[in-house]
């Protein structure tokens, strides 16, 4: 028996802990403060970079606390989880009360409460009661969605109200937070985020995941039919456009252009234009000038395959292509590297920067090499994501906006007009309450009363 009591006690204390709005304030502030840390310390860099930046001691401390990926750390997620439990328990705690207020057939009105309001308006009227009643009813039923009249010995009451359901706005907002969390969780468990580079004309069936670097196979192939990039006159990029085809069973089932901000969605997988680049050329055309004879020759070379040098002087292999190449601290940009095997058995390196045609002249060899043409193919860089939680998150967004609007800018307003005979005249009392924006309600009551008095 005692045990049961204890556990019930424990349970109710836990419940009360999570039902406290003080906890909400503490959690919200803790989240605000801890979130700052991750904006001052760049997240998800390489361990070496952190080690270099903070030294061994701080590196160890910070990495134990997961500061380098803090938004996914257990303690940050715990804060979010507690916030969610807090919202749920708090809302449950109060929901039954609200429910009873919102879902009643005949809304109860307490006359005493309205009479005791300090903000009520009063005036006397000489009009006949029928006329008064009609006018009051007209006004109340025009401005309020619910309106009822009750007869009394000395006159009557009119009760009116509207916006009862706006009391649910808070729960909508809180529910939206739960939706966001469910959606985010779904995404992080069942979704993935990766990227792939596809050369023009080629098809891929798999992508590389961002987090782990693992290869992830897709159920279909993606072919890049074409890629183009255009620029403004200022040199700033204007548009990146890839023409993609979805390949299933060797057949193209869908063909679409994508640009930044306009992705392709297929079977729950989204393909976003994210980057582009040049593929290393496979074939180049060389201009070869003989110093001795002054003759110029054109030769095509494939990367890695030796070509004969004219006049029987040996062979040249284009070994490598680099996006950037430094020669004696001079930056040459895109460059081909080759090996010249001379007739006499010596071999030397040849450096062929694309943007400096006469670079090879400085070598003072028997031949001067330069690159005149090379095949340039783009590849398109795609961000590939799948997030089955997005729909839930988006519905959370919508519910939150609607809920916030309802909570902040609409209120449950109640109005009571009492008319009672006093002497030869009628005494009219107009009083109103609202669960929010009470000043606004006061002003409305005042206007309404003036309206009636002018009758």
């Amino acid at each position, binding site marked *: 028996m005692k045990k049961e009591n204890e556990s019930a006690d424990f349970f109710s204390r836990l419940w009360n802990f999570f039902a406290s709005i003080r906890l909400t*304030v503490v959690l919200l502030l803790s989240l605000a403060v801890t*979130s700052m840390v991750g904006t001052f310390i*760049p*997240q998800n860099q390489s361990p070496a970079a952190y080690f270099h930046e903070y030294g061994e001691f701080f590196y160890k401390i910070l990495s134990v606390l997961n500061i380098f990926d803090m*938004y996914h750390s257990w303690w940050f997620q715990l804060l979010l989880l507690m916030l969610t439990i807090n919202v749920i328990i708090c809302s449950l705690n109060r929901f039954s009360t609200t429910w009873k207020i919102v879902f009643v057939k005949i809304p109860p009105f307490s006359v005493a409460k309205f009479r005791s309001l300090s903000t009520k308006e009063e005036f006397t009227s000489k009009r006949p009661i029928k006329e008064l009643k009609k006018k009051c009813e007209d006004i109340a039923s025009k401005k309020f969605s619910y309106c009822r009249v009750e007869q009394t010995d000395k006159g009557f009451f009119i009760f009116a109200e509207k916006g009862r359901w706006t009391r649910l706005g808070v729960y909508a907002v809180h529910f939206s937070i739960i939706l966001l969390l469910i959606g985010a969780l779904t995404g992080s468990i069942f979704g993935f985020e990766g990227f792939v580079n596809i050369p023009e004309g080629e098809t891929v069936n798999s992508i590389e995941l961002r987090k782990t670097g693992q290869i992830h196979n897709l159920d279909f192939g993606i072919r890049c039919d074409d890629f183009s990039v255009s620029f403004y006159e200022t040199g700033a*990029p204007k548009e990146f456009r890839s023409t993609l085809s979805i390949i299933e069973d060797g057949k193209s089932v869908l063909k679409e252009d994508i640009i930044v*901000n306009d992705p392709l969605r297929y079977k729950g997988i989204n393909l976003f234009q994210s980057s582009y680049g040049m593929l290393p050329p496979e074939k180049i055309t060389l201009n070869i000038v003989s110093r001795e004879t002054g003759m110029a020759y054109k030769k095509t070379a494939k990367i890695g395959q030796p070509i004969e040098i004219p006049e029987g002087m040996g062979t040249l292999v284009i070994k490598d292509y680099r996006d950037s190449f430094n020669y004696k601290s001079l930056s040459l940009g895109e460059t081909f590297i080759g090996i010249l095997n001379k007739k006499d058995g010596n071999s030397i390196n040849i450096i062929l920067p694309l943007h400096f045609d006469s670079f090879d002249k400085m070598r003072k060899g028997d031949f001067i090499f330069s690159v005149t043409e090379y095949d340039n193919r783009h590849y398109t860089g795609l961000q590939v994501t799948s997030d089955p939680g997005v729909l839930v*998150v988006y519905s959370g967004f919508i519910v939150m906006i609607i809920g916030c609007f309802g909570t902040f*800018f609409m209120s449950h307003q109640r109005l009571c007009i009492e008319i009672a005979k006093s002497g030869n005249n009628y005494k009219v009392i107009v009083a109103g309450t609202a669960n929010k924006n009470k000043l606004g309600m006061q002003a409305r009551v005042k206007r309404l009363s003036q309206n009636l008095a002018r009758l």
Partner: protein
Amino acid sequence: MDSSNLLSVVTFVYGLAAILYISSWIFKKTLPGLLATWTAFLGAMGNAAGIIMRWVESYKLGIGHAPLSNMYESLVFFSCTIAVIYLVIERTYKNRIIGAFAMPIVFLSIAYASLSPNIRDQIQPLIPALKSNWLIAHVMACFLGYAAFAIAFGISLMYLFKQRDKDGESYLLSHFPELSVLDNLTHQMVTFGFLFLSIGIITGAVWANSAWGSYWSWDPKETWSLITWFIYATLLHARMMRGWHGKRIAYVSIIGFLAVMFTYFGVNLLPGLHSYAQ
């Protein structure tokens, strides 16, 4: 005259309005106050005209887009929204002293945009990532929110000044609105700002999802907007559920606005990137 010139003129008009509001507050004269209102109104009209002109100009340059794409344009929009919201409050509450606190913010914002050497006022073509209607909604909502928070900040300052003078002895504070009115106004501005900040964060997330395939990536700018959101959510709950009023709410509202400022300016100093920065 192009939009940049017009907006430079508007800067001075706002400056004049700020001076008039402050002098009508200090010297308690109606005439400068009346002039201030009209000057501020003129400034807001010019400001709005400048924004529209800039929009038209961008189409004439063949790179048409809504003028909400960089620091300059967003600051200009920010000024305009604060000025408009303030004028509505002035009309509703029939009190010009708030102008002495709101109009300087309007002036500083547009002056910083027009005069700071770090901010380019040319119309620039949009880079691919910024070509999205979600971006327009995002920037508009954020700045409507920020404008409301800026006014809440000004009113909170007024609250703190006024409550230190309980006996009403101070000459300068005597025409301030009642404490309860200031408190209530702060709350109204914060709820308005909170709704639009929420919409701003949400539209930003939708935009990010359409451009990069992930609606939230904890980049510093996103994170700071969320921090701001947490701070104002704290304020709302403390007030609605724990009965905080007055001074404490004023302090939280001031801290909230500092977070807004950091979201906007400070984040550019942090490591990491938000493509909208600069």
